[in-house]
């Protein structure tokens, strides 16, 4: 037994090294679980506060870009508001669709930290659960989808960026409504790939790609980008489509978090139906 102690003591550096390295690798490969934990990510109170303070200084250098973006967004909103109310309503026979206009509400938030150079990029926002933000809410900006909230603290939230190889988004081609999966390959931050579009669909470069609205996270029809390149890969029966994003992730500064007002209702009815099954 004493020999064992002596052996460990003599090689304590190697043992400590192996211990720490294994611990790190466990962290790396279980990251998705730890992502749910309340600490050790960029929306924690400490790191969030440091990013906010730094952002307060650095935002002065980007004021002109931010001004331009806000002006463009104002113009877009004014155009929407300028349309007479009656014209905006969808014909009354389609009552189910009519009310979707009130289904979503928006919270604006400021980006305090953002990366585009990793394989898994995350964004930190300066709004949190105090402002009604919850995990799994969608985040958009004037130019398209930004990501999805993964973690919130009282005053900050972490958003999984669209530029994250672990996340896919359901999208469709606006012209003919064929839908597929949008994903990022970890290389160019201006380009994403649309898959699952079969060969019989006619495609044109320049076609607009929009959100499909199949998930409860994003409303239908948010413009994402245009088709840049269409290729057929051998052995596959689907196109590989490169989509150029409208959104420039590098100059992101203000975003909107989407709240789906119907989500609770939807969850409730799903829960109720599953409970009923349980009683039977």
């Amino acid at each position: 037994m004493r020999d064992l102690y002596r052996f460990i003591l003599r090689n304590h550096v190697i043992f400590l090294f192996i211990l720490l390295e294994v611990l790190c690798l466990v962290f790396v490969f279980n990251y998705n679980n730890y992502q749910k934990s309340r600490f050790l990510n960029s929306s924690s109170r400490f790191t969030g506060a440091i990013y906010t303070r730094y952002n307060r200084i650095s935002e002065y250098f980007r004021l002109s870009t931010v001004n331009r973006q806000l002006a463009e967004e104002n113009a877009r909103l004014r155009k929407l508001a300028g349309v007479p109310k009656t014209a905006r309503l969808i014909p009354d026979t389609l009552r189910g669709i009519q009310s979707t206009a009130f289904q979503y509400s928006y919270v604006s938030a400021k980006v305090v930290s953002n990366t585009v150079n990793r394989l898994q990029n995350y964004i930190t926002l300066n709004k949190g659960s105090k402002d009604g933000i919850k995990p799994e809410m969608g985040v958009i900006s004037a130019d398209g989808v930004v990501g999805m909230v993964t973690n919130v603290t009282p005053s900050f939230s972490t958003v999984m960026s669209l530029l994250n190889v672990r996340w896919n988004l359901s999208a469709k081609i606006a012209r003919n409504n064929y839908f597929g999966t949008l994903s990022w390959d970890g290389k160019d931050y201006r380009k994403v790939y649309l898959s699952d579009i079969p060969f019989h669909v006619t495609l044109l470069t320049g076609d607009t790609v929009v959100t499909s609205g199949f998930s409860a996270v994003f409303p239908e029809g948010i413009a994402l980008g245009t088709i840049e390149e269409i290729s057929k890969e051998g052995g596959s029966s689907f196109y590989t489509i490169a989509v150029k994003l409208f959104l420039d992730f590098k100059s992101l500064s203000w975003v909107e978090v989407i709240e789906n007002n119907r989500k609770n209702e939807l969850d409730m009815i799903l829960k109720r139906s599953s409970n009923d099954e349980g009683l039977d």
Partner: protein
Amino acid sequence: MTKAWIKYPVMFVAFVLLQVLILNQIHLGGFLNPYIYVLFILLLPISMPRYQVLLLSFLIGMTIDWFSNTLGLHAAASVLIGFVRSPVMALISVREIEQSDYPGLKQTGIKWFLAYVVVLVLIHHFFLFYLEVFSFVGFFRTLLRSIFSTAFSVVVIVLSQYLVFRK
């Protein structure tokens, strides 16, 4: 000796802030990511017990991970170079490190320091980038990324030695 108690904590905070606030925002062509916080590990006193070097490497790696949402990734690469630090030192040459306890450029000379930095930063970046991708798909892309980022980091580290750590 008391000076080290102030100097290293200050260096720790400075390197972390420099890395997460400024250098993490640099990405030339989505390709070059300099990571110079490793200089903290490289500049620890030569006589420091190796288990302490390992623990401090782990600490700074975890702090960087905490800020960049990459739990364990930087810590794994940092612990690795914390471990190979003293074998690498001995491998390059023992003569220089006997003259001073602080492995800075001024103390050890440009030739020794450059060899020391290049070898360790290369190990760190290779391990980091391949662990991040965790596949050999796009092997050459990751290889190029590691090599160019290493060159970038080494240039920044050597410059910092001339500009900040002059004494």
